[in-house]
């Protein structure tokens, strides 16, 4: 799948949240978008999923402008383009498996979805995905009863249920402690490498971007100011992206994630390998 973002802007009042951005994304890489709060990272992802409308521009997916899609076609695109949120955005009072099955909302009849008449095959698939992400035991619990890290994995399971070509992750680990953050990032990375799905993640920390991404995009004031491999993301470049003065310290953008041993037994166990 090839995505071409062409001169896309999103203007709120007089302020451009995303200012004439053009990008080409293709294949199945892990793309990280970094930048300060308000740099336009979230707005860009939300426009890709069509949760927000663009003010102008085009987003061509294999040649089709998805910004022009309406009704059923728009919903069909959304079901192929899964999204993971900072606050998980699960339905708190519903059980975990139901939340995963919501990934099929765009593909099953309204009656099926409203009255929980999912087929046995659908339910089995949801449970398999939960098992793959190491949260199968929680299937019957209410989503609100789970820890943040578990909820985020349920949200990723919902995304996988959509069988998407692309997963957008909007600050997926910003609400999690370092241990859970690593589990969630490892999960996303595994999905990207094993399933060949493209992952685009807004990230808050440089070290996470460096460790997981094949390509890093830096945004500042709604514009793309950096686009390259993680190796090119030097402290000087980061200073530019974050618009920092002399007091900028890279440590301030890091979480303790780097202090953890990579691939600890804990993380592996949580992933259910």
């Amino acid at each position: 799948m090839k995505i071409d973002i062409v001169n896309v802007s999103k203007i709120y009042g007089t302020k451009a949240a995303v200012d004439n951005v053009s990008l080409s994304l293709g294949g199945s890489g892990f793309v990280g978008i970094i930048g300060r709060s308000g740099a336009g990272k979230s707005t860009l992802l939300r426009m890709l999923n069509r949760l927000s409308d663009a003010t102008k521009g085009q987003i061509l997916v294999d040649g089709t402008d998805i910004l022009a899609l309406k009704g059923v076609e728009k919903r069909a695109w959304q079901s192929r383009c899964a999204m993971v949120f900072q606050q998980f955005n699960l339905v708190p009072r519903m059980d975990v498996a139901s939340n995963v099955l919501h990934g099929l909302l765009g593909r099953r009849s309204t009656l099926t979805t409203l009255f929980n008449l999912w087929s046995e095959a659908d339910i089995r698939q949801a449970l398999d995905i939960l098992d793959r992400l190491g949260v199968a035991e929680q299937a019957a619990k209410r989503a609100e009863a789970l820890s943040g890290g578990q909820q985020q994995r349920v949200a990723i399971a919902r995304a996988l249920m959509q069988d998407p070509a692309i997963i957008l992750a909007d600050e997926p680990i910003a609400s999690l402690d370092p241990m859970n953050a690593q589990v969630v990032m490892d999960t996303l990375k595994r999905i990207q490498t094993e399933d060949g799905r493209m992952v685009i993640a807004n990230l808050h920390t440089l070290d996470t971007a460096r460790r997981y991404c094949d390509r890093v995009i830096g945004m500042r004031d709604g514009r793309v100011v950096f686009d390259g491999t993680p190796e090119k993301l030097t402290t000087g470049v980061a200073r530019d992206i974050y618009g920092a003065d002399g007091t900028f310290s890279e440590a301030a953008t890091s979480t303790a994630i780097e202090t953890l041993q990579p691939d600890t037994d804990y993380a592996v166990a949580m992933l259910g390998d």
Partner: protein
Amino acid sequence: MSLAPHPDPADYLAMVRRKRLYGGVLLVLFVVLMVSGFRVADARNAGGFFDGLHRVLDFPAEIFTEAFANWQNLPGLFVQFIPSLIETLNIAAVSTMFGALLAMVLAFLSTRGLALWPRMTPVFRRMMDIMRAVPEIVIALVLIFLLGGGPVPAMIAIAFHTTGALGKLFSEAAENADLKPVEGLASTGAGWIQRMWLGILPQVAPNWSSYALLRFEINIRASAILGFVGSGGIGYDLKTALQWGQGKYDQVVAIFALLLLTIIVVDHFSDRARARLVKGGLEA
């Protein structure tokens, strides 16, 4: 850093005096309005308020004396009126159910952030205002004229009013719902009905059921009153029995006792149910 200039106590005292003066003027105005209003009302009254005051309790006294004299009739009368009581309760239950279902739809359509057609929200809000503003008895009288007496006009009338009243309360509860789950559902390609049903309803269900139960209690009274204008149920029996000089006051007492008992029982159980619902003790 310099301190603010020291305030003059005289200014503050002047302000206090001014406030007291305004307060006093308002109080005098209020008393004058009340007294003159009462005098106008009393002058237009056929009898005169103070002349009739000592007779206020004559009618209830007469009812109770007569009923007490015929006390052995009461158990039989209770049994006799139970079918009408059930009819009254049925009218209340059915109209609460239909009213609540319509109110759900209108609430979703008129709540900011949820509405299917955001520009139409004021239209749906005004619709609910109108439904709420028209008293049940007015609608019932018109419908009885058109459709003839019976429980159907009463049910339509009460359901109509209930829709307006519950729709407003439902919409206010929905306004406070968390939109994150709705956004999560939207991102998967969910349609509007799916977003409302799966994203909002689980959140608001306890509050909405609680409001609907409260409305059921109110509708029992409304349903009894509508009996007076010919919609059947226990209200109709009460109207017949209350007519003066028929010696049926024992029936009046039986009906009132039944109504009172029903309201107490419904109130008790719906209080408990509502407390459990709002605390989240039940599955939504």
